[in-house]
């Protein structure tokens, strides 16, 4: 590991100014992903600016009936927050499906949004990887692709985003609050993450020095039911092969509103707009759910070795919608 300077940020302004002025600087939150990457040699910042103790650890209800989550809120605290548990159960469930108890106690909201792919070739500095070292090639194509993308990938990169929390937040139309030298801006999460295209090294639209200070969730629609379902190779403590965050509002058997996002299938948390279009206004039936899942996955382009994920995603999506409907009818 390359030697580095360490500074504990006094204020968000101080943090932004310090990192913006130094191209070789990085923010440090809980560190569960960053420290690992520094050990592996994936990155080598010369200055770490610790933002984990900034006063950004509050969860507050907003005037519009939503929730504002500070960037430094720990994953365990967010999952256990009474408002999240009662009004945003998909978010609580997504957080609880991620990592382990001791990691959730360290990991922060902003750090979770910015965690990087678990593609083994990205993490192994002895192999070519366009995301780690642009222009070197993609070792995953033709390699081990069980955890790789089936939607939105490019010839440059087939990695998936590993976060569970971000999938739920994508379904919930979260806004990412970002601070830079020019002030504060809000980025809808649908515009926050990038598909790889020919710049796979960029996960998000953030530029160097921009600091996430909070995430805002709008109020869920009245009568909404939501959940998060994760399919993985073991029952606990593993990344998703496929995951689904879904929310339905039913009005006497008809779906009046539907929001769906998928995890484990793309370079970013995948908002399932095709499925939503097939659901809204339709009868809440098995047939509708299967059709909606089929509509979304019709665009899937699996790799040589992860073809199974197309059907797995379809079935998981339909099953999640079915369970939400059954819950509503009880």
């Amino acid at each position, binding site marked *: 590991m390359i030697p580095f*300077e360490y500074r*504990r940020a006094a204020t968000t302004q101080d943090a932004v100014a310090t990192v913006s002025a130094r191209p070789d600087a990085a923010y440090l939150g809980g*560190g*569960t992903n960053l420290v690992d990457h520094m050990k592996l040699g994936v990155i080598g910042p010369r200055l*770490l600016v610790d933002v984990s103790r900034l006063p950004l650890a509050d969860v507050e209800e907003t005037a519009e009936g939503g929730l504002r989550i500070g960037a430094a809120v720990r994953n365990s605290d967010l999952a*256990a927050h009474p408002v999240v548990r009662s009004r945003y159960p998909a978010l*609580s469930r997504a957080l609880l499906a991620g990592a382990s*108890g*001791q*990691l959730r106690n360290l990991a922060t909201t902003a750090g979770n949004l910015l965690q990087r792919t678990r593609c083994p070739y990205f993490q192994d500095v002895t192999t070519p990887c366009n995301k780690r070292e642009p222009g070197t090639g993609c070792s995953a194509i033709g390699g081990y692709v069980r955890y790789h993308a089936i939607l939105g990938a490019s010839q440059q990169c087939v990695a998936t985003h590993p976060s569970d929390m971000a999938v739920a937040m994508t379904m919930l139309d979260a806004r990412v609050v970002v601070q830079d030298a020019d002030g504060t801006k809000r980025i809808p999460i649908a515009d926050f993450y990038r598909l790889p295209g020919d710049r796979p090294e960029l996960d998000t639209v953030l530029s160097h020095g921009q600091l996430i200070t909070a995430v805002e969730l709008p109020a869920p629609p009245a009568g909404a039911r939501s959940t998060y379902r994760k399919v993985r190779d073991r029952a606990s403590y593993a990344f998703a092969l496929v995951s689904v965050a879904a929310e339905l509002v039913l009005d006497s058997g008809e779906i009046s509103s539907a929001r769906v996002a998928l995890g484990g299938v793309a370079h970013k948390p995948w908002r399932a707009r095709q499925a939503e279009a097939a659901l809204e206004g339709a009868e809440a039936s098995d047939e509708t759910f299967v059709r909606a899942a089929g509509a979304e996955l019709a665009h899937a382009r699996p790799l040589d070795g992860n073809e199974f994920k197309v059907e797995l995603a379809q079935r998981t999506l339909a099953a999640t919608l079915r369970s939400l409907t059954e819950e509503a009818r009880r």
Partner: protein
Amino acid sequence: MENTRTGITLRVDGEQRSLRVDNRTTLLDALREQLGVTSPKKGCDHGQCGSCTVLLDGRRATTCLTFAVAQDGADIVTAAGLSEGDELHPMQEAFLERDGFQCGYCTPGQVCSAVGMLDEAKAGHPSHVTADLTAEPELTDDEIRERMSGNLCRCAAYPNILAAIRAAAAP
């Protein structure tokens, strides 16, 4: 390059310890290599096995994925610090009584994680297997297994670890 070393203070098992660390030093390495506190074990060193778990400012946390410099001022309780003199912590007693270890390598992390996990459950925190998110969680075997899933034991002493935690959790 300047300032790549920092003076820090940690409270470890009740004792104030001052040391100077290379900023690259993880909390785990600072404890083991610099302070001689060898209760937290280095297993995978990547946050996946849980053997380096301690109670960090009262909450269970792995020590391999945090830099010591970032924990300046922290209060750390290791498995060795849970006992009061010769009097073992009830969780340690339970692990002994139920034979919750074989090689013992994962044990300090298991014990710290179990103590932290019981506090989380007492505070009403749900887990991945909690059916009703808004209800008070009941500490069933499935709940204990899920909550302890960040701690691996390659000897597979899991049934005894589960029995030990169940015993320690009983009022």
